C-alpha cells in the first residue's frame, strides 16, 4: 500500500492528475486514426490529422523494457536527491494495452527483480520537497504483487 502524501504538488501541469492520490496520465487520441500520444499533442505523427481529443491513459500495463539509472542525473533539471543521497533507480517503458508505451521511473531498481513482461501499476512518487515544504510528485510504475496490490 502507498503511504498517503500530505501536500502533493505535481512536478508539472498537464502531465497527470492525482485521482485520490493515484496519478492518471493525460494523453491525446487522434480522432482520425486512434493513435494515442503522451504528453498531450496537437497534430498526429501517424496520419498527420489535426484533430485530437484528451484521454486519460490506463493505470496498469506490462513492462516492455527497462534499465537502471546508476549515476545521479544532472541537477537541475533533476529534482531528486543527488550526491551522497543519490540511490540508483529503475526506468522503463510500460505498455498500456491498446494505447501506447509510456516512459516512467520504476519503484524497483534491482535488476534481479525486473523482468520484461511483468505487470505494472502507476503510483505517485515523491522526488523531493519544494521551498514551501510541499512534496513534489511525479508518476512512477510499481510491480504488481501476486494478490494484485503493488509491492
Amino acid at each position, binding site marked *: 500500500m502507498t503511504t498517503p502524501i500530505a501536500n502533493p504538488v505535481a512536478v*508539472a501541469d498537464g502531465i497527470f492528475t492525482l485521482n485520490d492520490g493515484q496519478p492518471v496520465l493525460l494523453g491525446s487520441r487522434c480522432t482520425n486514426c486512434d493513435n494515442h500520444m503522451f504528453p498531450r499533442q496537437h497534430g498526429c505523427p501517424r496520419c498527420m490529422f489535426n484533430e485530437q481529443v484528451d484521454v486519460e491513459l490506463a493505470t496498469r500495463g506490462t513492462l516492455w523494457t527497462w*534499465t537502471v*539509472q546508476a549515476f545521479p*542525473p544532472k541537477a537541475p533539471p*533533476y*529534482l531528486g536527491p543527488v550526491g551522497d543521497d543519490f540511490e540508483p533507480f529503475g526506468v522503463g517503458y510500460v*505498455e498500456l494495452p491498446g494505447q*501506447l508505451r509510456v516512459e516512467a521511473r520504476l519503484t524497483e531498481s534491482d535488476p534481479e527483480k525486473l523482468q520484461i513482461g511483468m505487470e505494472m501499476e502507476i503510483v505517485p512518487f515523491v*522526488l523531493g520537497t519544494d521551498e514551501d515544504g510541499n512534496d513534489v510528485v511525479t508518476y512512477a510504475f510499481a510491480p504488481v504483487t501476486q494478490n494484485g496490490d503493488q509491492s
Partner: protein
Amino acid sequence: MSDVAIVGIGMHEFGRHDGISGMDQGVTAVRRALADCGQQWSDMEFAVGGSMDAGAADTMVSRVGLTGLPFTNVVNGCATGGTALAQAVNTIESGAGDLGIAIGFDKHEKGAFRIKGPRGKDWYGGSGLALTTQFFGMKINRYMHEHGITRPTLAKVGAKAFRNGALNPMAWRRKPLSEEEVADSLMLSYPLTQYMFCSPGEGGVAMILCRADKAKQYTDRPIYLKAAAVRTRKFGSFEVLAPSIALEHDAGPTSAASKAAFEQAGIGPEDVDVAQLQDTEAGAEIMHMAENGFCEHGEQEQMLANGDTEINGRLPVNTDGGCLANGEPIGASGLRQVYENVLQLRGDAGERQVPNDPKVAYTHVYGAPGISGVTILSR
C-alpha cells in the same frame, strides 16, 4: 550509383586537446585533405560543413581562405557527417560544382551528452528521465530479450573496439581492454557499463570530392562513392528522449537508409568487405549489424563468438576502434568512418589493414532524433 569520387582525405587526431579549438581541428583536417590530393583551398568550388558545438563551419574561411565559395552549414546531430556528404554528392551531381570539400569537426565538454534534446522539458528531466544513456540501456535490453543476445557479447564488442583503437594512431583511447575489464567497469545504465559507452570528444575530418570522371586528375587512387543515403525515422520507430512510443513498430531509419543505399549501389550486404557502424555504445553496434542487413536479428551472438567482425574476420566492423575508441565529436564522427574506409580501400590502414584487398566498404552513422546516413564506397 553516384558519379562522385573521394580524392583527398584529412583528419585531426581524435581525443581531448586542451587549448586547440574545434575550429582549429577542422582547419587542420582541411589542410591535410588538400595536401593529400595536392590541391589548394582556392580550387574548391563549394564546401559543406558542420559542427554541433564548435561554431558555424563557414566562419573557417577567414582562416583557410576568403575565396568566395558557397559554403553550406549543415547540422543533423550525430548524422551531420552523413548529411554533409550527401549534400556534397547532390551538389556535384546537379552540376553546381565539380570539385568540393565536406568538413566536420567538433569539441564537446566532458559529460556533454548527459542531457540534451528538445524534449528535455522540466517535468521530464526533473523526474529523472531525459538521459540518452537510459535510452541506449533500454533499447538493447529489449533487443537482448527478443533476440537472445547475452551480456558477454556486449563486452566482446567493447574489447574489440579498444583492441582496434590501439592499432590506430589517430584514435583517442589506444589501450586495449579485456572483455572482463569492459564487463566489470562501472555499470552506468543496465546492461551497459562505462567502457561500453563512447564519450563526447574532439576531432576533425575533411574530404575532397569531385566528379568521378575527373578523379584521376587529382589522385591515382580515387575511391568512388557508390551510394550516400540519409533517412529519418518513421512512425513507430523507437528513438531517444521519447516520453512515450507507439505500439506500432517500425524498423527505424537505419534499415531504410541501408536499403536505399544498397539499391543506389546495385549491390547487397554480401558484397561488403569492411563496415563502420555507429557504435554509440556496444549494443548499438550489435543492433546495427542486423539493421544494416549484415545478419538476421540474433545471429550477432554467434558472429561475435566466431570473431567474424574482427579485422581478419569475415566482415570486419569498426576497424579504427569506432566511437568507443575514438570518442564522438558529433560533427566529425560520420566523416571519420568514411576516412577509415578510404584508408582501408587504398590499403593504407597500416597495422589495422583488412587483409585480402578489400573492394567495397560501408559506413553507417545514426543520431538523434532518429536519422541515419549510409555510404557505400568502392575502389
